[in-house]
Each structure stands twice: as C-alpha cells, then as structure tokens.
C-alpha cells in the first residue's frame, strides 16, 4: 500500500515554508487582527478558590473613563452551559461506566459561586485594553469565602467541601476497563512476584507560546458573527458555541483560527471568554477583543495530567508479566472541560497494555472535582499517564524480581506483527516491531558498556543511573463509529478539499489545523508529489470555517494520518477525473491513461501525453470535453480511519545525581522512534526533540502547585513555574525504525506526542537507578526537584 514512499518529496527534509513568515514577525495571530470600533474585554475573576457570590457592584467601574458596558452571569439570560463533549453514561451503553458522569453546569460567567481561582464572574467592556483592566479592578464583588479542596486524593474524601449539587462527594464518574477476575487470578499465581507502588502524575500547565485570544465581530447588517480565536479546531468551536451554548445559527457564524502559536491541546476546548465575547458582540453590535495575559493563561487554560495511581504488577518466576492492576484518581478540576472525561478513561486505560504481552489487566478510574482549573487533554492526553504507569511499574517489578530492567522488557515484548494485535484493554494495535526499536536503542547506547561504567562510577561514590521507556501510543484519532460508542459527542474524521485552478496551481483546504505542526510544508509535499508539480504551485489553507469543509482539527497526532489521507483521497479523485479529460484529449480510453511525473500519458506510448496544466485548463475551458464529465477540477473528501495507529519506540536516559544538592543532570538521551513512514524527517525530528523537552520538564521541574490551605495557584507565573530550559538538555541521540501502518495508504502513524509520552518515565527511572545503591527502589512524585531528590537521599537507608 505504501507506494508513495519512493516519491520525490515524501521523506525529504525540506525546510518549513511557513517559517520565514514566523521568524520575521509577519505571522497573523488573533491579536494582530485590528478592526475599527473595536472594544476590549477584561474579566473579573475570583481571587478565591471557592466562594459564594453575594453581590456584584459594578457602579464604580461603570463610571471609569472608557468603560462601555459590564455584564455578569445574570445578564446572560438564555445562554447555556459550556458543553462537555464526552458522555460517560450507562444508558448510552458506554462501556466500562461504573458511575454515570455528573454533567455539572459550567456557565460562561458563574453567578452562584466561584469554584477556582480565576473563575470569571463578570466582564468589563471598554474602549481600550487599559480602561477595561482598570474598570475590572473597580468591580466590587461581595464574596463569601468557602472551604476549598485542591488536592486530588482529598477531593472525594468524606468531609471535603462540595463543589456542585449534581456531584455528590465531588465524584465526576467511575469507570473501569479490563478483566477484574482474570487479573485477580493472575496475582494469585503461585510463586508470582508482586509489587505495588503509588505513582503520581502531577498537574501541568500547557504554556503555549501565544496566550489564548479571541475577537468577535457581529455584523448587524448581515446578522453574521465572525470569531477569530486561538483554536486547534475552528469547526468544533463553531458547532459547540452555536448548537449548545448560544443557540445562534451555525451558517451565520464564521470561526477563523489564523496563525496560532502553539496549543499542546489547550486550544482544543471551548472556553468561557470566547463565548462571552461572542455574546457581547451580538449584544453591543460592536467588535469585542480579549487576549489573555500570561497570568490568566496559568489560571484558565485547561491544565493537564493530575493523576494519583496505585499500580500493581505480577511477574512469574521466569520474568513474564502475569498481570497489571491499576487504580487511578483523576482530578478534573472545578468544571468539565470539553473532552475532560475522555482523557483519563479511553485515552488512558486503553494504553495500559503497553508494548508487552500482558495476559490480564484491570484498571479503575475515579474522576473527581476540585477547586482547581479544569483539566483536559495536554500533549499526549492520557497516553503519557498510561505509559508512565506501565514503564515505572515494569521497572519496579524488575527490581523486585532481581532482574535487569532491559532483559525483563525484552522478555515480554509483543512479537512483531502487522494487521492486528488484540490487547487486554479493548484496542487493537495496527502494526509493531517493538524488539527492533529496542535493540537499535540498546546498540546506540552500548548498554553493557554503560553498566560497566556505572559500576566504576558507583565505586567512586558517584550516583549514575539509566532509565528506559518502551512506549506505545494511539494516534490517528479516530474511527467515528468507535468513539461514538465510547461516548464521544463528535465524529473524528477529517476533511480535505483540493481545488485545481485553471493554470494548474492548487489550493488545498484542510480541516486539520497547524499551530506549529508545519502542515503548509508536509501537506504540500504530499500534493506536489502526487500531482507531479513543483511545491511552489501548492497552497495549504486551514483554520477558516468560511473556506474549509467541516473539519475536526488537530490533536492526538492525527493531522498527517487522518487529515493527510483526506487530502490524498481528493488528489486521487482529481487524478481520476484528469485521466478522463486526458483520455478525451488523447483519443484513448481512461483506463489506458497513466499519470506520473505530472503527465497524463497513454500507456506504453511516451509521445502521447498531456501535462497536468493542460488538463486543468481544459477542465475550466471545456470546449473539447468528454461527454458526461462535469467541468472544473475540484474534489472534496472526508476520511474516517478504520483504526487508530500505534507509534512506538524505545527511549533511554542517563543521569547523574549530585549527592550534595540532589540536582539531576541528564548526561545522555537516546530515542528510537517508529512513527511509520515519515513525510518530512526534519519536522518529525523537531517534534521528537520538543516532545522530549516537555517530557523532561515534567520529570524534573514542571508542576502546577496549589496551596493546600488557600487554594491559590502558587506556580502562577514563569518566575515560579519552571519550564525546561535548553541548558538542562543534552544533544539528543535519535534514530528511527519504520513499521508502516496498514490503516492508511501512506503508512504514516503520527509523531506529535511521542517524545512527551516516552521521556518522563525514562528520566524518572534513571533517577531511581542512580539512587539504587542507596536503597531507593521507587520515587512517587514528580517533578524531581533537587530538594525532593535530596530528601530522598537523606531518607534512604543506604545514604552515608
């Protein structure tokens, strides 16, 4: 199937065509859009983690020069709750539901109570950004502070402050997957080594480079609303806002997500501010803009992760994994974000099989509400959490069994296969050769040599360690029918429209959205190859519901595999139609026409050919045209994948721990990834590099910390929340194996999230290994700040 691999641009590291625009400051981001008569919104936000709203006094703020209007939740009559797009309910036959999802309301401006610091309660509209902010400071809210709970494990404990009437005990849902009885039996196997560990996957802030922003313009003359918004999926934004929240006609709303500076998932969701600005613009009949400050981004962009897990593994005497038991509490924050319930369930439990032949798995998840920012998909979304649990507990199991962590993995890999491997957790893997990526990584590492060096270093008192991660992830999200059965409120196909202009120039309209991924390059590579035209003749358009067909957007490493395939299908249709036109011009039968190198040619007759441009011109000037063929050359396709794709790989990290300070230094980082066929290796390398940095960030320094008493976000600025920096990272040693997926014709799997998923457990495992001579066999919590590691060293029984 994967015939395109030998084509001209597919597989070439051509430079990103969008970069000159970005690196010379000529990108057009939402905040760059200026409209005459524009007003500015500033939100009045709760300073409390939990407080009842007694009264809101806007009089003084209204008198502030430049303030145009102020609205509270009570003014927004007829506006509905922000929707949650994933419904875990038994009556919907969603598998695994133990307790139905509590669909608690999430009003664009809350009017009864604030449930986290930053919860918006009013909006001030003014003629300038400064006046709006000053006005917002003058809005007087009479708060009645209430007890708050932010800690994941305490949220559903008895006596915890209740957030929502509709969620007793703060439980959002209970869900399970796998075979409980078989797993229980596996753990009772005679002679089994069993290990149970508490594993915490801390809360993260997405920190996209561009803060969220929106600009809503209602045109009273036409009744049309245009919303520019930082979105990874403009059609999803439009649908949710029109159909569920504001009840306004979808065909009168245009959503534009122009250049968007990063998302990492946080720009998938429909947010309060976008809805409020759209509503206000209709109300005032003036454009309304809002751009988040970085402080607002920390408080209101959906956070990621925040799981507390008890994981248990059972190993046979031969080192074979017998069973895995996982019990997770997932903190969803104060409200249900758009796809929040899917992340700790179907994007998490279904990946717990890892790359191993595990005969029995059972996983239970409880979602809880707390007085914190809502949690939703963040780069990897559920899959990093699953990989983290599996890769940490596998190493813990190996230690307990006295086996080498590398040998134990190798013993348990699923053997090479293509087509289908049925896991114990519902999903069916598409293709894999886990041992090959692993062996390549060990070879690059020179594992035995490293262990010898480590032994020597330990004799000198140095704390040198190595950690591994053999990861798998689910990309190419996702078959619509399947996700529908699992509770999704949306289909997850993608659209791709190819418009050939008379001169042979091509504009492609994709439902995928690029906010860093490089689609203007990779998609153009596919098009130029397929049509045999120079890449300069290809333009990629995305992000505007006014021009692109209904599309689902970009997340879950789906653009190349789902969006790219939709484009490829349209290209095939263009070529098929082109063959009919060419056959007519060449006086041959369409089935005798070959298309290659930009030429339609009669098979076996090199002299009888017409170029692509001649066919496109004929399509639009159809004077000499085949009977029964419509003029024009434009095709649209919607591709709905038949399965997920499952990239995998093997990562290793070598660290040295400073015994005096606890500081962790990464000495080497190796990554062998298998993402199927690769369209642009340079872009994939960039994704892997950035992903590893993010994964390292979680392992070593990142973490959203709430004060347990006040519920304030302590790490609410870049002075406090530590993002990974270049000097923390070594030169990566990377390579790839290639196992094409049979799911799509290009054999591409997805590469956007692999590094993030793989890196975190590799780094933490390395630190555990470094501290092993001191008697350390596990580290529960991240990030592994110097202080945390130092305390572990102090508490270790083998510490000097």
């Amino acid at each position: 199937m994967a015939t395109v691999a030998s084509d001209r641009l597919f597989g070439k590291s051509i430079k990103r065509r969008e970069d000159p625009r970005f690196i010379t400051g000529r990108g057009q981001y939402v905040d760059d859009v200026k409209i005459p008569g524009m007003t500015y919104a500033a939100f009045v936000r709760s300073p409390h983690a939990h407080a009842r709203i007694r009264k809101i006094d806007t009089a003084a703020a209204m008198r502030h020069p430049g303030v145009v209007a102020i609205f509270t939740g009570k003014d927004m009559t007829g506006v509905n709750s922000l929707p949650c797009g994933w419904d875990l309910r038994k009556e919907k036959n969603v598998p695994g539901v133990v307790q139905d999802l509590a669909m608690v309301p999430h009003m664009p401006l809350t009017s009864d109570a604030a449930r986290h610091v930053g919860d918006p309660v009013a909006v001030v509209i003014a003629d300038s950004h400064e006046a709006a902010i000053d006005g917002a400071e003058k809005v007087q809210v009479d708060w009645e502070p209430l007890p708050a709970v932010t800690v994941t494990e305490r949220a559903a404990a008895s006596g915890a402050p209740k957030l929502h009437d509709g969620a007793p005990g703060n439980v959002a849902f209970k869900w399970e997957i796998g075979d409980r009885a078989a797993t229980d039996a596996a753990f009772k196997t005679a002679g089994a080594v069993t290990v149970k560990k508490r594993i915490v996957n801390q809360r993260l802030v997405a920190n996209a480079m561009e803060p969220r922003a929106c600009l809503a313009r209602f045109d009273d003359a036409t009744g049309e609303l245009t919303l520019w918004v930082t979105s990874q999926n403009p059609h999803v934004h439009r649908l949710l806002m029109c159909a569920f929240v504001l009840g306004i006609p979808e065909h009168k709303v245009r959503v534009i997500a122009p250049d968007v500076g990063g998302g990492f998932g946080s720009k998938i969701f429909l947010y309060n501010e976008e809805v409020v600005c759209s509503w206000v613009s209709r109300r005032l009949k003036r454009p309304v803009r809002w751009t988040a400050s970085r402080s607002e981004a920390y408080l209101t962009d959906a956070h990621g992760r925040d799981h507390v897990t008890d994981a248990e593994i059972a190993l046979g005497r031969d080192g074979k994994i017998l069973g895995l038991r996982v019990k997770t509490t997932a903190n969803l924050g104060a409200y249900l974000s758009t796809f929040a319930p899917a992340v700790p369930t179907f994007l998490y439990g279904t990946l717990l099989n890892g790359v191993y032949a595990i005969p029995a798995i059972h996983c239970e998840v409880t979602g809880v509400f707390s007085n914190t920012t809502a949690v939703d998909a963040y780069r990897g979304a559920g899959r990093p959490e699953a990989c983290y649990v599996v890769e940490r507990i596998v190493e813990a199991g190996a230690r307990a069994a006295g086996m080498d962590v590398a040998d134990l993995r190798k013993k348990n890999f699923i053997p090479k296969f293509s087509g289908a491997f049925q896991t114990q957790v519902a999903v069916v893997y598409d293709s894999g050769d886990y041992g090959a990526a692993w062996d390549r990584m060990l070879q690059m590492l020179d594992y035995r040599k490293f262990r010898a060096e480590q032994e020597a270093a330990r004799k000198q008192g140095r704390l040198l360690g190595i950690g591994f991660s053999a990861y798998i992830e689910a990309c190419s999200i996702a078959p619509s029918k399947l996700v529908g059965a699992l509770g999704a409120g949306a289909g997850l196909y993608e659209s791709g429209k190819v418009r050939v202009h008379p001169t042979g120039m091509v504009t492609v309209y994709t439902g995928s959205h690029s906010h860093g991924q490089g689609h203007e390059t990779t998609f153009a590579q596919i098009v130029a190859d397929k049509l045999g035209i120079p890449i300069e003749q290809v333009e990629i358009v995305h992000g505007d519901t006014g021009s692109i067909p209904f599309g689902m957007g970009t997340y879950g490493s789906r653009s190349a595999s789902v969006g790219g395939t939709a484009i490829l299908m349209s290209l095939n249709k263009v070529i098929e139609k082109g063959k009919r036109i060419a056959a007519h011009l060449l006086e041959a039968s369409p089935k005798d026409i070959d298309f290659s190198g930009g030429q339609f040619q009669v098979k076996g007759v090199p002299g009888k050919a017409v170029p692509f441009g001649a066919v496109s011109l004929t399509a639009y000037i159809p004077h000499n045209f085949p009977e029964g063929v419509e003029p024009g050359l434009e095709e649209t396709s919607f591709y709905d994948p038949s399965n997920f794709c499952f990239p995998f790989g093997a990562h290793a990290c070598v660290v040295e721990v400073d015994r005096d300070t606890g500081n962790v230094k990464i000495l080497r980082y190796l990554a062998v990834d298998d993402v199927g066929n690769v369209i642009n290796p340079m872009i994939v390398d960039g994704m892997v590099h950035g992903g590893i940095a993010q994964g390292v960030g979680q392992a070593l320094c990142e973490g959203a910390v709430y004060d347990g008493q006040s519920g304030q976000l302590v790490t609410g600025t870049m002075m406090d929340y530590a993002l990974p920096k270049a000097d923390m990272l070594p030169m990566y040693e990377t390579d790839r194996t290639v196992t094409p997926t049979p799911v799509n014709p290009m054999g591409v799997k997805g590469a956007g999230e692999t590094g993030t998923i793989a890196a975190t457990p590799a780094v933490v495992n390395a630190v555990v290994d470094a501290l092993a001579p001191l008697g350390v066999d596990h580290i529960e919590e991240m990030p592994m700040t110097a202080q945390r590691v130092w305390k572990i060293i102090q508490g270790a029984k083998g510490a000097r």
Partner: protein
Amino acid sequence: MYPAAFDYHAPSSVKEALELLGKHKDDAKLLAGGHSLIPMMKLRLAQPKHLIDLRKVPGLSGIKQDGNMLAIGAMTTHWEVESSALVKSKLAVLSETAALIGDPAVRNRGTVGGSIAHADPAADYPAAMIALGAEMVCEGAKGRRTVKVDDWFKGLMTTAVGEDEILVEVRVPVLPASSGAAYLKFPHPASRFAVVGVAAAVTLDGKGMCSKASVGVTGAGTKAIRAKGVEAGCAGKKLDAAAIEAAASKAAEGVDVQADLQGSVEYKSHLCRVFAKRALTEAVKRAGG
C-alpha cells in the same frame, strides 16, 4: 497585564532626578533597567504614580579604575560588567557573577545600581559585594556619601539609601596579591535567581595560611548577609578540604532562612553549607593555595 497608569520622567541630570524624587516622594520610583520593577508593575504589585528613568542621566554608566578600586556607575548593565576587559582582568569574580544573572536579555537591560538598590533577597550581586567589601556611593541634595556594604542591606528589599538619595556608583576594591574569589549559586529552576548563592574571597599569606576570608550569602534569607562564622573558621588556617568543610558548616548561621517551594529551611541551610564549601574551595584554588 498592563501596569496601572503612571507619569514617566526622563531627567537629564542627577540634580533633576533628585528634584523629581523630592517632589513626588513615595509616589515615585526610580527606573534603573526595570527588570524587577516593571514585572511588579505589570502584576500591579507596585503602582507608582511617577517613574523617574535614570537612563538618560549622563555619567551614571561605565567602569573605571580609581586607585585600588573599580568604580562602577550605577546604570552600568550586567552585560557591561560581564564583558568588561577591565573587570575581567582586575576582578574576574565580578564578571562571573554578572554572567550568572538571568539571561542575556536581562543582562543587557538590568543594571548594577538597580539590582543593589532593589536588594532582592535572591539577587546575585549582593553576595559578591559583601565578599569583596564594596562601597555604595549615594547622592542627595547635600552631596555624596559613601556607605560600606555591611551597612547597606537592611532587610527585605530595604537598603541604606535615603528616600531623597540616588545610588550613583558602586566601588569595589581590587583583591590584593595571593587572593582568589568565586561566586557559585544554586539557581531557581524557573527564575534563575539564587535559591542560594555564596561568594567567597580569600587572601593567603606567605605560608599559604588564610590571612583574610570574606564570605557573602544570598538567596536563602530575607537579605544577603556576611557569613561571619565561616570567615572566622577560615582565618589563620591552612584551608585544606577539612578546614574548608569545617568553616563552611557555619554558612547558614545568621541567615533568616525562608522556606518556599524550592526549599525547606533545612534544605536551604544545607545548600548554604554546600555552596560555601564549593566557593571557598574554588577561591583558595584561585589564590594559589
């Protein structure tokens, strides 16, 4: 976030700046680079009504040698200190200290005087200034006065500069012969301020014994302090590993260590000792010991 509204003044002389300061008093803030003040204003933690920018005041910037002192204008940027051939040749430790501040953008805007007058408890310069025995020159309506570094840092972001004065120059003595100095820090993973930073300067006598040790500690407490216990532990000793270890064990004494996300009192106290040991070891090595 936008700061609250303020008036901006750009005086062209110290005299004019002092007049503005005298006129607006508590409502005014001096702007000397702005890498601490502007972020505080953006978060609206500081809302001065008047900003008096010293950028256009001539004569406040530059580094020159004055006898056995380096005279550094208050508006000299960290980058100028870091890259100055004079500083590198006469007092390399100061150049190294500047190089550890923030990042290149910060170092090209932030100034020596701004940092020392702001007296952030986690700033880098204060430890070095204490170890090197610097003097601060303040100018007021009645003229100039010099304040020794030991009298300078009064408490959290408070210094000896008068409300009606401007810090105009920092004077740092060049080290005598057979001396070595080093500043080492444990950086905050996000801000790169010093969680703990220790500067040590040692002078050895003809027999290789420590004739003088001067040690400043920053980061851990509410202000940078002189580690007198460490200095006493060094004086008159042959500073071998054991002597350094023993002296460094006093590094947290007198520091009012503040616990935060980056460290408990116990951990930060420990870091004071670790970095005192490392800074002393390096200083002794540089002194030829």
